[in-house]
């Protein structure tokens, strides 16, 4: 069996689609490198476009966006109601819109209800407000288990919910993307919006955690 670092891959015979591509691939990093080289040299991709996309999700689009949305909803009841009624518009009002955030719904945690978001079929995630999903969100374990045993999964994130709190588990099967509004931590009554945003973690906005508290935030707010 001969394999090179380019694209020669042995055929397997367990898969009979006419678009059979079931070779054993080389190391994925090399495969991606080879593909990028081919696409740019063929003129299918502008290297600057690739850099623009990577840069956008490294610098501009991430959980800080969602944190600002949540913090606004904590200080402004009218904004909170708008967010619950029409999240797409309310979030766009703060400047966040686009790919994988075209149709947003916001759901709020209360003393009685805890929301948790998953995508069992792939890994749909609200990119406009949270950026690219973390590894755990895309993992088979999370996708398989969150929907069947959310309480056990949450315990792995350090969140032990009482049975009196109902879990609402959102499986993102369509193009609706979900943002969880965590509860505002106690002891933050006199905090301003910007300081509050520092308490809103990515995990809290997926439902896999709570917002930080003044005690756990590191005291710099």
């Amino acid at each position, binding site marked *: 069996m001969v394999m090179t670092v380019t*694209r020669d891959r042995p055929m397997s015979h367990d898969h009979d689609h006419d678009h059979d591509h079931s070779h054993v691939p080389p190391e994925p990093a090399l495969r*991606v490198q080879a593909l990028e080289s081919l696409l740019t040299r063929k003129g299918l991709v502008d290297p600057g476009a*690739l850099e*623009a*996309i990577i840069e956008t999700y490294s610098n501009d689009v991430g959980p800080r966006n969602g944190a600002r949305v949540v913090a606004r909803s904590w200080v402004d009841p009218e904004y909170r109601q708008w967010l619950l009624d029409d999240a797409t518009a309310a979030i766009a009002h703060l400047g966040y*819109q686009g790919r994988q955030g075209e*149709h947003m719904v916001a759901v709020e945690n209360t003393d009685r209800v805890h929301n948790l978001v998953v995508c069992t079929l792939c890994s749909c995630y609200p990119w406009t407000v949270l950026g690219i999903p973390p*590894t755990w969100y895309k993992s088979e374990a999370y996708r398989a288990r969150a*929907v069947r045993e959310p309480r056990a999964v949450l315990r792995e994130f350090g969140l032990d919910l009482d049975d009196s709190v109902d*879990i609402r588990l959102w499986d993102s099967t369509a193009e609706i993307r979900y943002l969880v509004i965590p509860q505002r931590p106690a002891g933050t009554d006199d905090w301003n919006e910007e300081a509050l945003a520092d308490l809103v973690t990515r995990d809290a906005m997926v439902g896999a955690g709570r917002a930080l508290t003044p005690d756990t935030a590191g005291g710099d707010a």
Partner: protein
Amino acid sequence: MNGAHDLGGMHGFGAVPDVLDTHPHPDWYNRAMAMTVVMAAWGRWNIDASRRAREDMHPARYLGYGYYERWVDALERLMVETGLVTEEELRTGEPAGESLTPPVDAAGARAMLRRGGPTERDIDTQPRFRVGDRVVTTNEHPQGHTRLPRYARGHEGIILRHHGGHVLPDTNAHFQGEHPDHLYTVQFQARDLWGSEATEGDTVMLDLWETYLHAQ
């Protein structure tokens, strides 16, 4: 299709990995993501076709691959299917034929991200269901792409929200048209889906197209 991607409820995967998200992400993840996003600018496929390509593989291979390996594999397959590259070019890594002009540059890519791909469409039929209606999901096992997971087939739920008309993935994924259909959020009792080990009062919400639903 009843593929390995339909993971909801499966056992055997163990603990959720890296819940603190401390492992570094190799650079090729970003490059695989960016290539996938920017190649969509050619307009040869759609997001449903991308998902179909990522799940339409031998289950052992799906589970053996890492997340972005599936993306790259699907991207290559879509490019071959739609004639943007040939198998030969992928095998050799050498471009053949004339050099092309990419459809978007850096500014175009940023505009693409900002524009996104809304799936809501005008629809001229009235919704069959109203909020609060009881419905039952179909128990069909289509060979093609669908977004009704196995764990939620043949179950009773309640309409929680109506989202208007949305592109139907089942046809769009196979280039058979968008066929906009009413989309609803349907709420299921966790115990109906998962039995006595689920906690009473917990619920599971799925976004489902009208074609997946019957009146109760």
